[in-house]
């Protein structure tokens, strides 16, 4: 699924030309942060009693979810901004944020599933939060597919801004529906994912993880945004 991130038809030369400067120092810091988190998680944070090593996923899973939510927030805001100001930079930012968001939603779904198998005994369950995450993924994959299906830049920007806004309006409704759907008829779930009261070690590791992922988000967003800008410039240059 991650190959959705490059589904926007830039040819090899464009990528080669722009790839070098897009990943800056911020990206390096973010990656170092993620590595540090995991070194700390694996070597310096105690094993969780019930779940054992599986719990180590904890440091990627909610953090990716948090990053995904941030990204979709950016999509909504830039979409509104675009319809208002008609500035192509906002459209490119929305596109970049949607792509980053889809990647992190995918990571959340996959790590959640991987976690679920040992802990809940199943890859998937129709918990409200899981379902909402799945629909978020659908909405924003739909957003990217829509973008891929339109050639004209102005039209693409307007259509995707509309979908970006409507999608943001939809999220509370889906949340409410699936939440009521479940809680009125609770299914037996062995462990409910609720905020655990963490020991200090774990909390610190978690905060480190959250910080690094946020940095990673900003770095990726910036890199993807520069790529979009360069692509636009390149296309304008190559015009007849």
């Amino acid at each position, binding site marked *: 699924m991650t190959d959705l991130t490059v589904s926007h038809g830039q040819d090899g030369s464009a990528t080669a030309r722009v790839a070098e400067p897009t990943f800056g120092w911020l990206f390096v810091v973010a990656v170092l942060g993620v590595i540090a988190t995991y070194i700390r998680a694996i070597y310096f944070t105690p094993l969780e009693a019930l779940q054992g090593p599986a719990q180590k996923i904890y440091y990627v899973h909610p953090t990716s979810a948090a990053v995904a939510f941030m990204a979709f927030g950016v999509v909504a805001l830039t979409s509104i901004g675009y319809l208002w100001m008609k500035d192509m930079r906002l459209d490119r930012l929305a596109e970049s944020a949607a792509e980053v968001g889809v990647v992190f939603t995918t990571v959340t779904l996959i790590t959640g599933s991987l976690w679920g198998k040992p802990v809940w005994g199943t890859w998937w369950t129709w918990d409200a939060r899981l379902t909402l995450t799945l629909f978020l993924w659908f909405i924003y994959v739909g957003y990217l597919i829509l973008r891929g299906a339109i050639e004209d830049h102005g039209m693409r920007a307007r259509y995707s801004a509309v979908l970006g806004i409507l999608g943001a309006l939809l999220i509370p409704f889906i949340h409410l529906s699936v939440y009521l759907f479940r809680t009125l008829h609770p299914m037996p779930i062995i462990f409910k994912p609720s905020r655990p009261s963490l020991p200090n070690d774990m909390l610190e590791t978690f905060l480190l993880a959250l910080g690094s992922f946020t940095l990673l988000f900003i770095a990726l967003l910036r890199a993807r945004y520069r790529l979009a800008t360069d692509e636009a410039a390149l296309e304008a240059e190559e*015009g*007849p």
Partner: protein
Amino acid sequence: MSDATTAAIEADALVRAFGARRAVDGVTFTLRKGECLALFGPNGAGKTTLLRVLAGLLRPTAGWARIAGTNLPGGAAARRRIGFISHASMLYGPLTARENVELAARLFGVCEPRAAAARALGEMHLMPRADAPVRALSRGMQQRVSIARAMVHEPSVVLLDEPFTGLDATGAAALSDSLATLRRSGAALVLVTHNLEEGLALATHAAIMSRGRFARFEERHTLDAASYASSYRTLVAHDA
């Protein structure tokens, strides 16, 4: 209504791009009431694109255009003035000729839509087939309905994209008559055609478009038909 000296159509550095290709690439001209511009140019020069921008159906990428003093894309009042005949018939195949034209009359707020539709169809000698579904009409007949549709509200700016296509001698004569009457009543016309003779017959101005720009733009009376034809042919040949 604006007075006689107001420009009916103005375009300034008008650009419309599809992706990287600039179909219209900086067109500037002015046309006053009662004038008729014959627009020639090789295939792919951008004539249709220009007309669709002037009709308010495509957004300009850069530059601006005005119809009767209103910037494009204008509001309802500006659209009320425009009549547009395009490559596509803009008709509903399952509806009859009469229903199609009457619908247009009603949407344009014509006072007596029934009578106006009958009149417009009559002018194109189509009354005998007025109640046949458009889908069952021959190509030339469909073109006549399309013309009646565009004329039923007596537009003051008429944009015609190869309107003689498919018409027989009677149909062509009827269209020429209608256009002459419209011009006399103060309408401004833009007539795209590949037939120099046909175009110059009605025109007060003539332009040749090439690669999105006006290669020539003159008043009709300054032109010699024969030398114009030869310079047009040279231009077309070089363009391909």
